[in-house]
């Protein structure tokens, strides 16, 4: 524990010199503070990545635009993708896991608090390395530029011959470093969940949040590491004269693709499964019913984890695999839709027969359900590999994955923010700001990403800095860009809400939502030691048992 202050006070009323406060934050090993560090740094990079997206959208507003040069555009889409996946989505989800997992299982901290801090700072260092490239990555076109090889850095584009200078080395190193941080956090989450649960909390009594983060952490161990391995190979090629991906020496560009996507596909499940975790905690509370089908939800998630390790080459349908390979990956990709669909049905089943409260977390959750359904269905379309031979590498794919990441992951994250912000800060977020945020973002999101499917169908490839007039893409791109700006405004509303509510929000007590998991049994914000006495639980919803002693869950489990 970082804090050896003996205060038992609930509020943050210390009048410490700012230097001490800063030192506490920088030297902390407390899972709650590290969680907040992860979340705040992720929000910072969300804004930076968003600016990169806006630059892309301004350039694409009409054909033959010259807002930025092709070199700058190519750096923008590379940095946008890399930032959003590795320095926004992964950290923010690790941050929530860090904050909430110990609280939900009745523990005082993560299993390895110092490893926790180390992992966070590795992640942050990785982000700094990536952005240092703007200053330090000298390429062919002058001093100081960011990588421009796309966030996949396909071979041989990433080789020395085609990417001279250091820009793509910053990409490689930054992901290698933050990858090790991710592995550290994953090990920590697994050890915490398996070794620090409070008495009575058998594995089948854990909140689904803990289960799903356990599955996610297990996936991180075997999904991130192939990327680390591939990047070590790339560095060997670039610096030691190796030939792993050197097609002139008989090497294989396709091998890089396999290694990358063996990482890349499970990675997106690593990103979505914690969001399933958010939904599985929030939807029950605002439907006033327990989650429908707890054991099935666990089984479905575990099967998603396994099946998702077998679908990776659906990102490679156009590279010329034979018909048997294409058929195999078509089958597995369609198959992974079955357990995923089951989860959607179970969430709807949770709402069914309930008493739904449309507070902001629930609004975002309903948005998640609607959009994740659509995103899953466009995924099934592309699972049919011949259909993918047209749709792949076009704006249809870009629309699909933004639908999952923004319409799914980001909406679930917004729900999580509104739900757990009171616990973390002791203040409620403003409901009216929240509704403005929701409706503005929903409008901008659909304007951009619904429309974006169409240019793909009309033949517009991705990663192009400009396009020909007369293909029918102009007006569509214009509308898409307008939607992007609306989303930007909504994000500003959200950030304003976060900041203003911290100072002026309605104070929150232990349990503002009348919820059922252990984190709501302690003060908001929690004291450094979390629980005064480690609780003992007898069911999946210990606070329900506490509030309804005449009808406890433990009687039915």
């Amino acid at each position, binding site marked *: 524990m970082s804090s050896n202050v003996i205060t038992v006070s609930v509020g943050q009323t210390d009048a410490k010199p700012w230097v001490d406060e800063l030192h506490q934050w920088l030297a902390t090993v407390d899972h709650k503070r590290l969680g907040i560090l992860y979340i705040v740094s992720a929000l910072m990079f969300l804004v930076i990545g968003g600016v990169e997206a806006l630059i892309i959208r301004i350039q694409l507003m009409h054909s033959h635009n010259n807002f930025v040069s092709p070199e700058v555009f190519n750096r923008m889409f590379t940095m946008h993708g890399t930032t959003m996946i590795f320095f926004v989505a992964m950290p923010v989800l690790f941050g929530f896991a860090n904050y909430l997992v110990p609280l939900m299982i009745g523990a005082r901290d993560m299993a390895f608090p110092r490893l926790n801090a180390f992992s966070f700072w590795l992640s942050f260092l990785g982000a700094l390395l990536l952005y240092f490239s703007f200053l330090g990555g000298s390429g062919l076109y002058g001093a100081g530029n960011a990588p421009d090889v796309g966030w996949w850095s396909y071979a041989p584009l990433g080789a020395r011959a085609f990417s001279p200078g250091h820009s793509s080395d910053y990409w490689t190193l930054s992901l290698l470093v933050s990858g090790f941080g991710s592995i550290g956090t994953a090990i920590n989450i697994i050890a915490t969940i398996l070794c620090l649960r409070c008495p009575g909390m058998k594995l089948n009594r854990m909140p689904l949040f803990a289960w799903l983060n356990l599955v996610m952490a297990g996936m991180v161990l075997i999904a991130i590491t192939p990327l680390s391995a591939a990047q070590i190979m790339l560095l060997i090629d670039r610096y030691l004269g190796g030939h792993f991906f050197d097609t002139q020496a008989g090497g294989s560009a396709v091998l890089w693709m396999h290694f990358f996507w063996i990482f890349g596909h499970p990675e997106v499940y690593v990103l979505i499964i914690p969001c399933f975790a958010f939904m599985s905690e929030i939807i029950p509370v605002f439907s006033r019913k327990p989650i429908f089908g707890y054991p099935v939800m666990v089984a479905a998630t575990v099967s998603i984890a396994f099946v998702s390790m077998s679908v990776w080459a659906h990102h490679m349908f*156009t590279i010329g695999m034979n018909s048997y390979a*294409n058929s195999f990956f078509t089958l597995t990709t369609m198959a992974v839709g079955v357990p995923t669909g089951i989860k959607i049905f179970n969430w709807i089943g949770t709402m069914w027969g309930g008493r739904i409260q449309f507070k902001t977390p629930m609004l975002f959750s309903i948005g998640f359900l609607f959009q994740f359904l659509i995103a899953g269905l466009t995924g099934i379309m592309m699972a049919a590999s011949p259909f993918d*031979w047209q749709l792949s590498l076009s704006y249809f794919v870009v629309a699909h994955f933004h639908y999952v990441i923004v319409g799914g992951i980001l909406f679930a994250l917004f729900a999580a923010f509104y739900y757990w912000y009171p616990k973390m800060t002791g203040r409620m977020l403003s409901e009216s700001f929240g509704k403005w945020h929701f409706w503005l973002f929903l409008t901008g999101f659909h304007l951009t990403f619904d429309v974006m499917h169409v240019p793909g169908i009309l033949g517009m490839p991705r990663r192009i800095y400009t396009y020909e007039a007369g293909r029918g893409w102009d007006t569509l791109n214009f509308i898409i860009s307008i939607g992007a700006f609306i989303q930007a405004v909504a994000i500003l509303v959200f950030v304003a809400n976060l900041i203003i509510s911290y100072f002026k929000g309605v104070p929150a007590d232990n349990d503002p939502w009348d919820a059922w998991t252990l984190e709501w049994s302690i003060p908001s914000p929690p004291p450094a030691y979390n629980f005064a006495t480690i609780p003992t639980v007898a069911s999946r919803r210990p606070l329900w048992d506490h509030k309804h002693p005449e009808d406890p869950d433990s009687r039915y489990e």
Partner: protein
Amino acid sequence: MSARRTKSILSRGWQIVVLPFWSTSALWAVGPDDTPSHGTNIFAPASTPAKSIADLSVFVLVITGIIFVVVFALLFYSVVKFRERVIDAGREPAQVYGSTQIEFAWTIIPTLIVVVLFLATARVIHALQDAPEPAGAVEVTAIGHQYWWEFRYPKLGIVTANELHIPVSNPSHPTPTFLQLLSADTDHSFWVPELAGKTDLIPNHPNRMWVDPQRTGVFLGQCAQYCGTQHAKMLLRISVDRPEDFASWVRAQERPGVENAGAIPGRRVFERNACMNCHAVGGTPADGRFGPDLTHLMSRTTIAAGAAENTRDNLRLWIQNPSAIKPGSLMPAMKLSDADLDAVVSYMETLH
């Protein structure tokens, strides 16, 4: 008529593959045959691969559409019917934990849907990828470069760039074009949406695709796999010609480079500077392979892989300063004097 059909098994097998698609042409986007230029809409197919993909896509869209409607209806209904009303405040609804029968139902049904979708898809995969090459097929080798396309017709001895000419095909007398796809540098992807799905060009990994366009005209496309700075301007123009027009194009391409006395000063500029290191002109010592073959430059509508119209002014600008048209292209600015520049452009204009 039947006597003129080739009797080879390959050709027969070909017809078995192709004919069924064209006999049910319900999804034809009807357009006049002599439309000068087609678009890039994947749902306006003009060739068997694109058409069978479009047909399969409609099937998939219908099924996913039904799934969407059903699940959305359930979601919408639950949001409306089970919203909290004022009179409910303080009372919790029935705490239902799950239902094994319902879980079975919504596991079995999606699994069956997956089986159906997969079987329908697998048929199309095999039909398109394992189609045998018939005897009368035109063969083209496409080689991707940063940022232009090299096209060779190995059986005809033709080399050209960026603009492909192929004959129109019809189901009763098929003349498809089979392309072998190679790359000289990084990964590219050949995508002409109305003719076929895309296939990548990957170094050290030859690929194969085919098209059998059923309508004449010019079909547009472009590189779809990010290949570097000017990926966006690696455009494709496929001219699908009537058989007689294709034959005369082939004859023109097979002629050696035009020798024109008035153009000799320009030719000397071309050969004295570094031009011939990268470019080839048939019938002259210029034999470079790094850049496009210029033997029949004037038979092309555009230059720089579609980045500009093929006019004297554009040619002049391109040679003088390629970055003005395509910054990041690997053609260097030649830094010629005005007189040399004009001479060499005049020389280019004789290369029909």
